C-alpha cells in the first residue's frame, strides 16, 4: 500500500510539472525515477518510452502505466496512471469552471488571441520535427498525402484515416514478403 501511494505521489508530481507533451516529461522522469528513486534504469526508461510511443493514447500516461506496472503490477499501473492525470483534472476543472466569467474581459481575449497564434506556430514546428523523424521513404509520403486529401477534401473521419494508415503499413509488409518469395 505504501508503495502504491508513493507511485501515485511521484507521478502526480510529474503530471504537475510537465508542460506540453510526453517528450517534455522525459527529463523529469529521468530525474525522478532513474536518478533520485532508482526505481528503473536508464535503459528501462528508454524502452518504456519506445513502447509508450507505439501504443495508442497519451504518451506521458502510457509511460506512467508501464513504470507502475513494472513496479507493482496492475495496482501499480493504476496508481501511477491515476497519479499522472490527477493534477490535470483538478487544474483544468477549476479553470474550466471559472473561465466562463472572464471570457468577455478584453485582456483575456487578447491573451488568448496571442496564445492561439503561438499554438499554431507550435503545431507547425511539431509537424516539421515529426516529419524529419518519421518520414523515411516515398511510400510514407504517399500515405501522408493520401491522408491529407481524405481529411481536407473529403472530410473523412480521423478514425478511418488511422485505420487506413494501419492497413497500408501492413500492406508494405505483405509486399516485402512477396518480393522475398519471388527471389
Amino acid at each position, binding site marked *: 500500500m505504501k508503495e502504491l501511494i508513493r507511485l501515485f505521489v511521484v507521478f502526480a508530481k510529474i503530471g504537475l510539472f*510537465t*508542460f*506540453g*507533451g510526453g517528450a*517534455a516529461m522525459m527529463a523529469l522522469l529521468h530525474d525522478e525515477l532513474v536518478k533520485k528513486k532508482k526505481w528503473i534504469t536508464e535503459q528501462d526508461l528508454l524502452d518504456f518510452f519506445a*513502447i509508450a510511443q*507505439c*501504443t*495508442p*493514447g*497519451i*504518451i506521458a*500516461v*502510457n509511460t506512467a502505466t508501464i513504470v507502475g*506496472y513494472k513496479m507493482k503490477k*496492475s495496482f501499480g499501473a493504476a496508481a501511477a*496512471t491515476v497519479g499522472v*492525470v490527477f*493534477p*490535470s*483534472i483538478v487544474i*483544468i*476543472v477549476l479553470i*474550466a*469552471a471559472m*473561465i466562463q466569467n472572464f471570457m468577455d474581459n478584453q485582456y483575456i481575449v*487578447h491573451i*488568448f488571441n*496571442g*496564445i*492561439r*497564434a503561438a*499554438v*499554431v*506556430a*507550435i*503545431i*507547425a*514546428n*511539431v*509537424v*516539421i520535427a*515529426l516529419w524529419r523523424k*518519421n*518520414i523515411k521513404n516515398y511510400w*510514407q*509520403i504517399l*500515405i*501522408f498525402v493520401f491522408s491529407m486529401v481524405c*481529411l*481536407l477534401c473529403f472530410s473523412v*473521419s*480521423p478514425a478511418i*484515416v*488511422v485505420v487506413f*494508415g*494501419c*492497413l497500408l*503499413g*501492413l500492406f508494405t509488409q505483405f509486399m516485402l514478403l512477396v518480393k522475398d518469395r519471388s527471389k
Partner: protein
Amino acid sequence: MIYLLLFAEFFKIGALAFGGGMVTVPFLIELSKTKNWFSLEQLADMIAISESTPGPIGINMATFAGFVTSGVFGSLVATFGLVLPAFLVLLLFSKYIIKYKDTSVFNNFLSGIRPAALALILYAGIVIAKLSIVDLKTGLFALLFFILIYFCKFSPIVFIVLGAICGVIFEI
C-alpha cells in the same frame, strides 16, 4: 445517456490516437462538428489553455471537453475513457510489445500509421490556424513565433507565455 456517449467517444479516441496528445485534436474537431458538445471556437481556447497549463495536453483537452459537455463528472468520464484503451493494452500486452517491437511486421504497421498521424496533426493545425489567424496582425505573430520556435529550441511554454504577453501589449 450523455455520459455513456462521452465515454464511448473518448474510448474510441484513446484506442486510435497513435502518436500522443496532438493526434487527439482532429478527433475533437470531428466531435465538435458532429455533436453539439462544444464549438470550434471553444475547442481553440481549450487547446490554448491545455498547452499553457501543467499536465499532458491530451489529458487536459479531454478533461476540458468533458467538463464543457457535462460538468465535473463529464470531465472524469472523458479522461477515463481516453486512458482506458492504452491501459488495458499495456497491462495485457506490454510483455509482447517489448518482445516484438523490433520485428518488421510491427515496424511496418507503425511506418504506415506515422504518416497518417502526422497528417492528422497537420490537419488539426490547419483548422486551428483558420480559427486563430484572422487578420494581418495574428498572421504576422504566428509567423514570428514559428521562426522563433524553429531556431531557438526552448520549451513550448516559453512561447505560450510570450504569446500571452504579446497579446496584451500589441492588442492582438
